[in-house]
């Protein structure tokens, strides 16, 4: 039940010059929100979370809980609870004792402790295993015990470090759904760290995508997916991954034509869709489009369609992935798994304007088009 503000947060490891794990980070986490710090390994997400918890000292900057600066406080005084990636259960204590452990530090009466333990166990559906030892439990059960132990104190902030990484697919599915419910029912602010974008998309109210110690974008899952701020976010979020094609913009009177290095016109952006800032845009660009949005036909549907050649076709159960070679670059397209394609078969591609993303090739910055609003109805 606390709003968190991270202000100019910096973390440097080691002696000068040191490793800059987190660089001047600015982030506001709303009360009761489930915020996910998403990024590849080494991006600084775990360091950030550990600074919120108080397990790492802050090199510079401040952490505020509900307006109170807490960066100098030891973890025990911050009223945060943390569920670790490895669960970190006390191996010699039973499940009941594990869950009760944080409460002993607060000197509550035994009856009060037992009541809270029961409540936590019920919430996580582990009432039937309270007498067992951690080593007798499955991964999923251990995960629940770890979560129960964290919620039993009714913390202001709940931190989860890669909670699903050691679970198998089915357990992961169910745990994900549980965590989302937990956040809604407990009304606690949750901060979750993960490198799995699917997990982030499923769980988060908002996602903060991190890379190289910086936040690349903060937004709802849909925002981050539909409206990425730069090429990194666009390429990291969403599966199968977004296609990126190097193109050269050649402005004409009616449109910006996007040409590949091999001399094919891949798309044309009508002038009406270009914002005023486009005058200052570079011409070395990257075109981004998600595999499910590329249109692919076995006969040329129009003169503007781009001819390409099938590189490989993979039928993977519920979907088919067609990879084509288009002007020396490979493009992945999601298709129906029952279709058949031959290697080297010619196909014609179209990149619909509504699903195109443009990025500067040099900086990766997203260049937003002024597309008309999609027709409703």
């Amino acid at each position: 039940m606390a709003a968190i503000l991270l202000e100019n947060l910096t973390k440097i490891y080691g002696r000068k010059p040191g490793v800059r794990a987190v660089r001047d980070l600015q982030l506001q986490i709303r009360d009761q929100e489930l915020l996910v710090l998403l990024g590849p390994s080494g991006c600084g997400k775990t360091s950030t979370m550990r600074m919120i918890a108080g397990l790492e000292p802050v090199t510079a900057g401040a952490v505020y809980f509900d307006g109170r600066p807490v960066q100098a406080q030891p973890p025990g005084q911050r009223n945060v609870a943390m569920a670790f990636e490895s669960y970190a259960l006390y191996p010699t204590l039973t499940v009941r004792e594990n869950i009760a452990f944080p409460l002993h530090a607060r000197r509550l009466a035994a009856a009060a402790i037992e009541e809270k333990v029961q409540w936590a166990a019920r919430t996580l559906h582990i009432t039937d295993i309270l007498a067992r030892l951690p080593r007798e439990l499955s991964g999923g059960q251990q995960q629940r015990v770890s979560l129960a132990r964290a919620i039993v104190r009714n913390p202001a902030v709940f931190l989860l470090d890669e909670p699903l990484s050691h679970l198998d697919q089915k357990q992961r599915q169910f745990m994900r759904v549980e965590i989302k419910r937990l956040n809604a029912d407990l009304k606690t602010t949750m901060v979750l760290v993960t490198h799995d974008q699917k997990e982030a998309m499923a769980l988060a109210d908002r996602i903060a995508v991190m890379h190289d110690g910086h936040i690349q974008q903060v937004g709802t899952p849909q925002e981050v997916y539909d409206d990425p701020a730069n090429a990194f976010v666009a390429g990291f979020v969403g599966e199968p991954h977004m296609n990126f094609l190097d193109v050269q913009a050649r402005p004409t009177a009616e449109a910006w034509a996007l040409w590949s290095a091999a001399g094919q016109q891949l798309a044309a952006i009508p002038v009406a869709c270009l914002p005023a800032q486009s005058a200052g845009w570079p011409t070395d660009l990257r075109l981004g489009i998600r595999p499910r949005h590329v249109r692919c036909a076995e006969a040329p549907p129009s003169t503007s369609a781009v001819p390409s050649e099938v590189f490989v076709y993979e039928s993977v159960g519920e979907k088919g992935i067609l990879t084509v070679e288009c002007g020396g670059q490979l493009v992945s397209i999601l298709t129906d798994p029952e279709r058949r394609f031959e290697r080297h078969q010619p196909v014609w591609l179209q990149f619909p304007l509504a699903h195109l993303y443009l990025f500067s090739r040099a900086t990766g910055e997203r260049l937003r088009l002024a597309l008309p609003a999609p027709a409703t109805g």
Partner: protein
Amino acid sequence: MAAIVFDHVSKRYGALPAVDDLCLEIRDKEFFVILGPSGAGKTTTLKMVAGIEPATGGTILLNGRPINHLPPEKRDVAMVFESYALYSHLTVFENIAFPCGAPGKSRPQAAVEAEVQRIAGLLGLGELLDRRPSQLSGGQRQRVALGRSLIRQPAVFLMDEPLSHLDAKIRTQMRAELKHLRESINTTILYVTHDYSEALSLADRIAFLYAGRIQQVGTPHDIYHRPANRHIAESLGDPPMNFLDGVLWAADGRVTLHTQGRSLPLPAAWAESLRPWNGCDLSIGIRPQHLRLLRASPGGEFALPGRVFVQETLGDDNLVSVVPDRPTVEQPVLMVLTEPNRVFPRDGPVHFTWQADQMHLFAKDTGQRLPGPA
């Protein structure tokens, strides 16, 4: 003639069997994948074919000849290890060229150089020939390991989870490239992995290995659409298949499924094949993309009631978890992939249904698949 035959092959470490009575026939020039969870004995199987692990029982035949007694250097196989096993003291060029220096296989220097250049070009390693393995990324090392095995032109390629240590993005790229490359290598490939998308994408045939035994052998299409048992069905697909408990009644030429307190009559085509299974306790398997959600209560159509637990929008996918009337510990919620832009309020009532021909029936006790309609 089959390229590789496993004739009752087993491998024991002390009392523990890592591989137990394996019988498998891999056809010439086939891309054969052994799919199974980690530690199921897949790597051990490959090492027995390569000769670096001796089999404790049974015979392995390569192109008709038993090879159990042959040391590795005398067998005509090439292996790509999961850890790549590159020679860290040699450059990329020397790594790829290494097999050419083996006794009895040496070729003239110029021929070797030309071949290494050709293979490097094929794998996109042309610029990296002077580097050492420690200076390469995971994906690049993987290609070097591949190159080193390609130069040998062996009778059989053995690949041990070659993509498992790559990040997701590189992995999907390499998978496509491997499939593309496969058509230039017209040789038998025996590939093991725990990743089902690799198996489905690359294989001509798949053998599903679980609990030390081969559970099913078939084409990717067979394995995916007609899994032989519940475990296989559950392992293929993301999100995984949902299962509902039910009972089958077959009598008088009619077949009915009873589940969640409702009855679903099945088309007559099923009656004949399912008659012997009358009274059987079932697990009814339906994939998330085959479940349909209906807001309103259905008319005459069969549908089961449930409550929406949570909705997850994953980009362009809409995943709704529904709590059925009678949830179980193994399946507390059903996952449904539904059209985007549909919104389901939390805890709201909903009905779900499916088509009979998209359903998979498994016996609850053995997990064995029941035959479909004739």
